[in-house]
């Protein structure tokens, strides 16, 4: 069964893309990650033009993060004030990111930049996850659970101006670091077609020292708006949002995410985490290989606007 994509301008197999959405949704439900960092490269491997993969990926993130944010909101796990501050930075970062995408496409270097950023991020995050999960697994096997964290440390963050009180997070800190983190993530989100949760959550925990309970909800809350803004900008500036492709991925994704969440309650976390880290590293290696190996065809085309 095929359907013709209006922006990518190609017919695709409906089942393949529903399946891809479901598989990525399953993983995101299982691990509580957005899955954009897997979806965008997989779309590219399946022949979707990179710029369309990024623009359409953003729409997929809106759907999956709205879903998660709503659930977190019901559990009162969202610090709205912090979310709004981060969002302000995030929107600015997205604006810059989409403009950078446009300039890079014009210069013919977007694919290269995308690959480099992906290889770097997936390589680093995948390695860290692998090390962390292997250690955790070893600890569980050795029978020593629980971890120790230093608290009450003061850092350079405390010296910044524009201090605000964030009640839900029980923090009194400058608004600058959350805004800057938001901006950086917004920039990455626009270029990579991701939500950025996997970068933002560690930043919120270790840099802002937010309580773990509100981290996921707050990050999802601001991702919804930043991703929505990215969709809008990609649609207006680059014309690279394919609504048919997005709906296929989202349909598969919402179903997959529910099954993933259900399975997540039954499976052993550490082993699955090792698998996820392995998957992330495989994608990183595959993209790195594409950059280094002599291509069969040195020449390539690009149209003047739209998907091609």
């Amino acid at each position, binding site marked *: 069964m095929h359907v013709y994509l209006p922006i990518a*301008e190609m017919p695709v197999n409906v089942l393949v893309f529903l399946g891809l959405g479901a598989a990525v949704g399953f993983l995101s439900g299982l691990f509580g990650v957005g899955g954009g960092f897997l979806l965008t490269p997989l779309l590219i491997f399946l022949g979707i033009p990179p710029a369309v993969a990024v623009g359409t990926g953003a729409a997929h993130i*809106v759907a999956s993060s709205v879903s998660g944010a709503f659930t977190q909101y019901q559990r009162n796990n969202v610090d709205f004030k912090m979310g709004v501050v981060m969002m302000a930075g995030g929107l600015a970062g997205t604006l810059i990111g989409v403009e950078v995408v446009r300039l890079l496409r014009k210069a013919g270097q977007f694919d290269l930049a995308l690959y480099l950023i992906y290889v770097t991020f997936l390589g680093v995050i995948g390695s860290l996850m692998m090390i962390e999960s292997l250690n955790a697994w070893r600890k569980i096997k050795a029978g020593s659970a629980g971890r120790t964290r230093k608290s009450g440390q003061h850092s350079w963050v405390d010296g910044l101006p524009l201090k605000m009180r964030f009640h839900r997070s029980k923090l009194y800190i400058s608004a600058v670091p959350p805004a800057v983190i938001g901006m950086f993530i917004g920039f990455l989100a626009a270029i990579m077609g991701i939500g950025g949760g996997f970068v933002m959550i560690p930043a919120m925990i270790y840099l802002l020292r937010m309580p773990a309970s509100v981290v996921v909800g707050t990050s999802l809350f601001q991702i919804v708006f930043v991703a929505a803004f990215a969709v809008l900008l990609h649609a207006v500036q680059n014309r690279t949002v394919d609504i048919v492709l997005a709906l296929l991925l989202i349909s598969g994704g919402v179903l997959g995410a529910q099954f993933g969440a259900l399975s997540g309650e039954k499976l052993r976390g550490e082993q699955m985490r090792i698998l996820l880290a392995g998957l992330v590293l495989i994608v990183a290696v595959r993209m790195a290989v594409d950059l280094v190996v002599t291509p069969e065809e*040195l020449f390539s*085309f690009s149209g003047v606007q739209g998907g091609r």
Partner: protein
Amino acid sequence: MRNLRNAAIAAFAVLLTCLIQPVLSAPADLPRETVEADVSTRSVSITSGFTGMEIIIFGTVENSRQPSAEAGTYDVVVVVEGTTAPAVVRKKARVGGLWINSQSMRFASFPAYYAIASTRPIDEIADADLLTKNEIGFKHINMKPAGRASIGFSETADAQDFRLAVLRLKQRDGLYVKSDYGVGFIGRSLFRSTITLPPNVPVGPLTARVYLLRDGQLLSSYTSKVTMERAGVERFLHDAAFERPLLYGIAMIVLAALAGLSAAFAFSRISA
């Protein structure tokens, strides 16, 4: 009697002349061959179910002197061309171990799609001048470099590399296709050819050109247009994305948010 005999001889001579004359002076007096042709489909609709289609180009040689379909007196070449569009072709080079787009050439125009079918390989049909003049065959497609790129760049080996790359890439994508024996005669004057439009054919009007040749000489040609447009949902979505991108973006966000929310609702009901 003598008159009668003379009259008989004269009559016979006239009769004989009448019989022989067409053979002797045929090229001068026989009507010229011309070609008339048409396309099976005058308009192609790209709908959400489009997975490519076949069009048939058929025609007839008027005043055909061909004794049979197999005689091979005439050559017919059919060219179906898509719209021309500007494009940039880039070439990768190794920079610090990575393959990076370094050189580029901007073309003002070349056809997005080009299908050619002929009764035999075109190089055997006519000489290069005629083929170039009529843009028959991949090598003879007119690829205009865009303004700035053409200065001091037009006839260098590099430019030739880029042209060849365009042909190679287009053939790889199935957008430049040729069929050396793709036109066949049915009977003395009727011919037909099937051209396949691939699923990824760039959307835009097509031009079908039919050439009739004999002994390397162009006798006649015929041009016909085929419209190709998006239709139905496909057209609606594409127009929205390009003409009302803001609305299109908002619609995308609303749909995505609704899908996400409904999933969350449904799931919280189930799990509660």
